[in-house]
């Protein structure tokens, strides 16, 4: 067991190195340097050269790369020139917002997808099943930004059930119960959108698992023992089908990260995705690089998580 996890971790190292090289090259390709915003027309060109020398920008690229990695490992990604503050603390703040949004989304996603998947599998070919399959087809086909906008328009503006932007109202005092509720309230609409968009995979997987399980020997044995059908579904089949669903968690997180760019932009939610889009617009390259690196790292972590859960659940797919 532990062997597999360690092997999987070692497998991640070259991927991380490759990712960091690409991000570094990307950073070098970007116009401007760390002094952007600090230089005025009267700055002495000799002084700029001096600064460059000091920061080691004239060193060969491999040396610069090693230094960059060293700094990044210590959490130093430079300064954001639009916000005039450390990139790390800026992203940290936004990452927390994104984390809460993703957290609520994942919970809603499973709350929605598991019952639907079970019902569709249990009453296969019934009207309910057809409806659920149709629903999961629609949510699979609809692009994130279209659904988000429609939801924002309908539930945010027309019906006014939800706030239409931000992560919290200004007038609420931090630290109170109301504050927490208010934040949750702001998260809810984007999270519901997220959850609806993400259900397809889980529903289809669970449905086909349950349909397959119906003909398994252990189900027949349970039936011949006289276990009521309801109990077979809740106790026997569900437990077996649920384990692989848990392994989906990593992929779900990976999917959420990609969607966060759209959802956070549309709902005006100050998370990492929104920060990324606004940094691109303002050409804030140090933030962009750090965010690409972080997103890449989290994506790798997501697939790592899935692989580890899968190898715990299903010993057949452990890495040789």
């Amino acid at each position, binding site marked *: 067991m532990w062997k597999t996890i360690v092997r999987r971790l070692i497998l991640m190292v070259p*991927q991380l190195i*490759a*990712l960091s090289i*690409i991000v570094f090259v*990307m950073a070098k*390709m*970007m116009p401007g340097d760390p002094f952007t915003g600090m230089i005025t027309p009267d700055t002495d060109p000799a002084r700029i050269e001096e600064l460059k020398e000091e920061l080691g920008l004239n060193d060969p690229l491999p040396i610069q790369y090693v230094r960059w990695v060293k700094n990044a490992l210590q959490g130093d990604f430079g300064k954001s020139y639009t916000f005039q503050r450390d990139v790390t603390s800026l992203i940290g703040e936004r990452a927390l917002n994104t984390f809460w949004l993703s957290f609520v989304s994942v919970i809603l996603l499973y709350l929605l997808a598991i019952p639907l998947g079970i019902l569709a599998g249990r009453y296969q070919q019934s009207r309910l099943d057809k409806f659920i399959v149709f629903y999961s*087809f*629609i949510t*699979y*086909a*609809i*692009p*994130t*930004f*279209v659904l988000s*906008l*429609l939801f*924002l*328009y309908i539930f945010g*503006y027309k019906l006014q059930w939800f706030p*239409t932007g931000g992560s919290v109202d200004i007038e609420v005092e931090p630290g109170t119960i109301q504050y927490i509720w208010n934040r949750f309230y702001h998260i809810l609409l984007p999270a519901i959108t997220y959850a609806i968009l993400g259900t397809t995979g889980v529903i289809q997987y669970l449905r086909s698992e349950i349909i397959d399980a119906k003909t398994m020997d252990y189900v027949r044995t349970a039936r011949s023992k006289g276990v009521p059908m309801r109990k077979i579904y809740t106790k026997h089949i569900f437990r077996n089908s649920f384990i692989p669903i848990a392994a989906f968690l990593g992929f779900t997180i990976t999917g959420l*990260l*990609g969607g966060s*760019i*759209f959802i956070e*932009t*549309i709902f005006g939610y100050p998370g990492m995705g929104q920060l*990324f*889009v606004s940094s*691109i*617009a303002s*050409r804030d390259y140090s933030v*962009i690089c750090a*965010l*690409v690196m972080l*997103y*890449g790292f989290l*994506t*790798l972590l997501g*697939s790592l998580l899935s692989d580890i859960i899968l190898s715990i659940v299903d010993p057949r797919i452990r890495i040789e």
Partner: protein
Amino acid sequence: MRRKKKRYRKNGRPRGIGVAFREFQKDKIALVSLFLLVLFILFVFIASFFIDQEQLMRINLYDRYSRPGEKYLLGADQGGKDILGQLIIGARNSVSIALAITLITGFIGIVVGLICGYFGGWVDYIIMRIIDFFVTIPSLLFIIVFVTLVPKYSITSFILIMSLFLWTGTARLVRSKALSESKRDYVSASKTLGTSDFVILRREVAPNLSSLLIVELTLNFAGNVGIETGLSYLGFGLPPTTPSLGTLVSYANNPAVLQQYWWVWLPASLLILFMMLAINYIGQALRRSVDVKQRLG
């Protein structure tokens, strides 16, 4: 000889197009989707010939947010530009860009996948590691960054950047199929007869993958329409002077437009939705006709 073939077809199982046709007959929604989509694409391509793009994109503040039916059939946006014309050209652009990306990524994917699956060995190992890497990186972010980095940005560079990140899925699928296919007897037999690898791949293995590929490419096509309009929506897709469905939808980022001027963004959103659903429906029907277990007909 010809007659014999015909008779065999008649008596034997229906194949290829026949199966797909039956599948469409059984699934009325897919049939309607196919019909509407073909009609829509024909309309858009023919109608766009009669639209002067420069005149269409000229800003005319007198018609700012004019309501549908006032001067233009579907109203105008904040620049006083005709929505209907933009929808037509935008849809044409989306369809052609998505098609171009699908064909490019499809071609790369098929070639790389066939080589990996058929030859195996260290070539396969290296390319698979590269593909694994592409799969694990956040490609959407990279596409956005590259789009902003390219100095002379145009539709062509947009297509190439997208293709660079989107070919891996097809390559993986083709590889896994080619791998199992290349172990079949007919390939070994052909090899024993001295057929060259290239001929085996092109004339013998590739045709056996074709039905699967049609499904994959159709679904990719739908996905590419979604990604293109999504990126244009964020402002990292087509240049702002080019009419695009995504750009029309992006006007809704302004809350005033979202609430009051629904005719600016809603038709484009619905059009995107229609295209995505229709193409996906067709893809699903094709997939069923490829997979015997799932067939309806």
